């Protein structure tokens, strides 16, 4: 608790405050990509459109990503209770699910490319790849963060009482998940019903 008398003005940790500040701005980042996608959802220039989506497949990878949020929060929970071993287990599980999601995305992309949906095909193709691609980059960065947390906790650099680190990475991870919740609905499901 505020053992430190000259704590911060708001009584909040800088890093957490900074993280939330940053996440607020990320909405404007992804929002612009989503808006672009919506604008171009039917602008396929004669190439493949939303009918190309494999909803069952994407549903599964979306589900995996959603569940990675559970393991992430369990990792934080374990860390908070000082159980680094269990924390590391959940961290690995989270990173693993993230990797599965990314693998799914790579697979999806290769299938689409085979079916003629290349980046240069149409505004639809460009906006689809760049939106989901940047989300993928965020997942990838998240995996790197998780792995660094994992290894640092092995070498004792991340200590029992430093669950804030796990929490921070968790915040980022959950945020990336939230964005996918939106993408899954707005990019995959709704266009599939409305247009596809």
């Amino acid at each position, binding site marked *: *608790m*505020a*053992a*430190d008398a*000259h*704590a*911060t*003005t*708001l*009584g*909040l*940790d*800088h*890093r*957490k*405050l*900074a993280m939330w*500040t*940053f996440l*607020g*701005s*990320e909405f*404007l*980042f992804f929002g*612009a*990509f989503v808006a*672009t996608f919506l*604008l*171009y959802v039917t*602008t*396929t*220039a004669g190439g493949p459109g939303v009918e190309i989506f494999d909803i069952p497949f994407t549903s599964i990878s979306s589900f995996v990503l959603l569940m990675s949020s559970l393991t992430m929060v369990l990792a934080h929970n374990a860390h*908070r209770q000082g159980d680094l071993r269990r924390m590391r287990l959940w961290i690995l599980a989270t990173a693993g699910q993230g990797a599965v999601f990314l693998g799914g995305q790579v697979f999806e992309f290769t299938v689409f490319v085979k079916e003629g949906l290349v*980046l*240069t*095909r*149409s*505004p639809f*193709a*460009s*906006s689809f790849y*760049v939106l989901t691609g*940047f989300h993928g980059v965020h997942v990838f960065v998240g995996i*790197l963060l998780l792995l*660094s947390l994992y290894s*640092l906790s092995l070498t004792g*650099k991340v*200590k029992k*009482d*430093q*669950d*804030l*680190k796990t929490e921070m990475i968790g915040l980022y991870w959950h945020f990336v998940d939230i964005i996918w919740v939106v993408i899954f609905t707005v990019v995959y499901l709704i266009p599939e019903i409305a247009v596809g």
Partner: protein
Amino acid sequence: MSSTTTPKLRPTKETGVLSWLATTDHKRIGILYFFTTLVFFFLGGVESGFIRLQLAQAEQSVISEDLYNQIFTMHGITMVFLVVMPLSAAFFNYLIPLMIGARDVAFPRLNAFSYWVYLFGGIFLYSSFFLGGAPAGSWVGYAPLHATEGMSMGFYAIGIQILGLSSLAAAVNFITTILNMRAPGMTFMRMPVFIWMALVTNFLLLFAIPVIAVALFMLQFDTLYGGQFFQPGSGGDPILYQHLFWLFGHPEVYIMILPAMGIVSEILPVGSRKPLFGYAAVVFAGAAIGFIGFGVWAHHMFTSAIGPVARSAFALSTMFIAVPTGIKVFNWVFTMWGGKIRFTTPMLFSVGFVSMFVIGGLSGVTHAIVPHNAQQHDTYYVVAHFHYVLFGGALFGLIAGIYFWFPKVTGKLMSEKLGKWHFWTWLLGFNLTFGPMHMSGLLGQPRRTAVLPGELGATVELYNLLSSLGVIVLTGSALVFLYNLITSIKRGEASGDDPWNARTLEWMTPSPTPSVNFYRIPTITHRDEFWHRKYAEDESGKPVSIPAGASDDHDSDGDDDHAEEHIHMPDPSLWPFVMCLAFFPIAYGMLYFNPWLFALGALWLVVGYFLWITEPLAEGDDDDPEDADDHAAVGAAAH
């Protein structure tokens, strides 16, 4: 601070090149920003010299169309992204911690990171001149023109992206600092106006930078990798780029003006020896400008392909932004009203700011008269408008700040005599350069033309000649300033700690500011805290000076019992610098579509990041290294 037993894990030297590369001291980073912007200002000024040389007469080709287009583009980019924004960042860096009573920013290493990213982004952009030609698509880089400009617009897209990253990191840093590191008692309504404007500006950056990031990524994909975002041939819509650009671009212009408004809001009261008139109104007006500023972007697109309802809506929102701005202007004027004004150089520049900015603001309002905007748009009338707000506004304010806080940084005064020369020639040269543009623009001279059309010659040639002559005056004036700056740094008169009889916290510390800033963090009981430590009010409300020493009006160093024994200052670190170097391989890798180069850069970044987070403290205690970045490790201490 640093003990002799320090293992050589972190650089500890306090002088020399290495100490600057490794510095995490917000004051030194501020100084780095300052000198870097000077260099870029020189470049941007030289470019504007070529512009004016070319346009001095009609149908003249001193430089080719191609080169002219590169030069005016780089002039705009340089002045906006490499001069005004980072110069504001220099003030943020130096002043935010001092003005809120903190010892540094929330994330000192991230702060250094921001600076190096800025510097390398600027170098990257300028390298284009030697690598096949600089961007020639204007500072707005409209699609789909960019796609035909090839590599050069790749420099634009990637370069500005990098600069944006710098600003975004800085924005997060400063917001956290202002929200979370104020001295005890410094409530929001006791914050100096400059801090308020810094807060608003950084929120604008926070929400605007991601938008331009997206626009630039799309531009980059279109230009370099065959993306179809804005390609009309396959159904892409060029207007989308305009929306995204101006969604950022308009907040951006307030990003450039609000810091200057904050600066003059500090200087005018000191110069008039009265408190700021209507503090609350000025603060709320600033916040309102920032907020409304997000809702006016399409006023740059009145002649583009948007319909009448959209045009009307944006005309209205644009006009009404004059209301909060007017509130500020009138409050500034009434700060002077009834004062006892000392026209020192900073004060002259501040009054010049108010006066010149109003001219630019009023022409801004006339742009919003949409039917007539169709005549004004993309003419020199617009060029006049934005130079009056940017040069007459932002730059005048920032220069006022340079003169005002110079003693704080160096402990010396700048020459008042040269300062006055600088001011009057600057004012004259500025009006001579940009005043005539109002006329030439209204008469019909379009902007971004490499040749001043002969048929316009008779009507606007004289105005153009005057503009070109104005640059000569400005150059002379800039040299006076430069001379003043250098000689004053070397052998300026000692200023004492509080040369202006100022009001805010930073003047409580000795000048030049010691590296700890405050030996003892003050407790704040008033707005304009320092003033209230110097003056009390008698029964009739008249201020009476408190005899020196009767209160803790100065933050004396030394063996004061109250001084905290162990002041934990951020340790220097080389990693921000080393890590930022990765942006070169990343940027060129993306530009030349070289995956290996890109991968090298990415790996460099990751390794750099790892070294950064595992970096031990200089003092060798096994404290959590990340916590070195914040003095109050509440999170960790909580458990």
